[in-house]
């Protein structure tokens, strides 16, 4: 599949934003985070800014962005529609949560925080299910895809929260969670790749043409001499040449380095922790951009079976 920059930015930015909102909503009522309302409001504003920027970016992928409101109508059948509805609904408790945090309204903060966390989790789950529900793409139609979106959003969110909490002098717990989730994400992604690599494609040229009863099927002639929408969108294979290196970069930058930096930040503390927290969060986001690019670039669509192998 062709990596669409607007969608890569959307899932990484909104994912991190929803992750941050989730952890803020859950941890703030527990009193584990710095008490400063400045800290809480800053974190909530960053979360909502990331979410909004991501959602706006997703509109750039549409052929008719001005009709985007129509996407809220088919939540009965469509995961994309459910994602839209969940995203819009999450803004309601999140706005209340932001106001409650800024004014230190504890009574309002707890329910709105928990509802925001729930909305964030549901929205990211819907995002994951958009991909996981697509049968023609075996790398996406996989039981680890939707949990993966949840895990990576949760990890990048808590990384941002840890970075901010370190600035306000109370980063121990979020940094610990970030390091743990970083390691979990590392192992999860490796397990996903191992599973996908070991899964044979469900469809073949033989089943796509039904000519397998004669023998091996080889494409002889394309229907057209030039490219077309299908080839550009669904037979993109550039990424696979460098897939092994990019996988290592994603694991290292996205998960291993941040986990290490947050561990060091806990140990060292002080000014060094602030620098490490910033670098850890930045590294996590950069690594997730690579990971998200690979999700598209490595995905194979059954349409490509009809065409000669593309480079």
């Amino acid at each position, binding site marked *: 599949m062709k990596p669409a920059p607007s969608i890569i930015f959307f899932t990484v930015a909104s994912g991190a934003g929803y992750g941050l909102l989730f952890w803020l909503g859950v941890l703030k009522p527990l009193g584990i985070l710095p008490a400063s309302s400045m800290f809480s409001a800053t974190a909530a504003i960053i979360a909502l800014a990331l979410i909004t920027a991501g959602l706006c970016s997703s509109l750039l992928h549409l052929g*008719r962005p001005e009709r985007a409101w129509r*996407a809220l109508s088919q939540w009965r059948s469509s995961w994309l529609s459910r994602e839209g509805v969940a995203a819009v609904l999450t803004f309601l408790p999140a706005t209340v949560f932001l106001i409650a945090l800024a004014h230190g309204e504890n009574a309002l903060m707890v329910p709105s925080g928990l509802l925001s966390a729930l909305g964030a989790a549901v929205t990211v789950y819907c995002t994951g299910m958009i991909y996981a529900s697509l049968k023609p793409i075996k790398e996406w139609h996989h039981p680890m895809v939707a949990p993966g979106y949840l895990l990576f959003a949760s990890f990048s969110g808590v990384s941002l929260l840890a970075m901010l909490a370190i600035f306000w002098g109370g980063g121990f717990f979020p940094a610990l969670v970030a390091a743990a989730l970083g390691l979990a994400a590392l192992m999860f992604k490796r397990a996903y790749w191992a599973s996908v690599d070991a899964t044979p494609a469900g469809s073949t040229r033989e089943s796509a043409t039904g000519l397998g009863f004669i023998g*091996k099927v080889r*494409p002889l002639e394309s229907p057209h001499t030039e490219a077309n929408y299908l080839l550009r969108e669904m037979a993109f294979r550039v990424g696979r040449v460098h897939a092994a290196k990019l996988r290592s970069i994603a694991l290292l930058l996205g998960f291993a380095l941040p986990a290490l930096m947050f561990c060091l930040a806990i140990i060292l503390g002080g000014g060094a922790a602030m620098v490490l927290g910033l670098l850890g969060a930045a590294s996590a986001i950069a690594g997730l951009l690579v990971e998200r690019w690979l999700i598209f670039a490595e995905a194979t669509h059954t349409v490509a079976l009809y065409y000669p192998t593309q480079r």
Partner: protein
Amino acid sequence: MTSLPTPTPGARKLGLVIDLDTCVGCHACATNCKEWNTSGHMAPLPDHQPYSAAQEGVWFNRVHAYEAGDGDEGRTVHFPRSCMHCETPACVTVCPTGASYKRAEDGIVLVNTDMCIGCQLCAWACPYGARELDEDQGVMKKCTLCVDRIYNETIPEDRRVPACVSTCPANARHFGDLGDPNSDVSKLVAERGGYELMPEMGYQPVNRYLPPRKASSQVKTAPKEAGPLPSQITNPLLRWMDKVLSR
């Protein structure tokens, strides 16, 4: 509404039956499809850079060619590919806007281009590559099964078939109700062992493909060497001999 219509027993399932034995790969179906549909229900079918290198455009029907098998059993098969008008089309259910829909009365899968937002999720969801983006309008386009021909009372009744079917010079394309076991197309499918593509996807495509017939057992004797034509024999005596002996 992108939820699928509730299937009713005996419901009409209009679709195509494509005979891979007789298809000669002439692309007439694809060409006539483009010609009809560029001014039809889902018009236009845009072309980009039509008069220079890298020209491309939206087509509802594309004719591939494959080699299958090896040696004497090997075959070259021409293979038209278009929308299967599936019974459980994920292209419809993934649509967030309700622009994609499956008609309850005849099973045709259509796009309302006035509602489509061009998110392209339907193209990702289709295993067969039946949906293409109209980059001029920013909306998805697909085969309509010539819904504007098959019910069109302004054209003679015997011509109310999809454009691809009406134009096929090899009679390799058939149109009809595959939900009715007694229809001509259903009988043809039963007789020839017609099959669906990628059944493992579970989309329950309606269109059927008729497999190439087995090649007749070939006579393995060497071909007879052709003699010269009488006009090529200049010697009159030899020409007379050739004429006598050829009787």
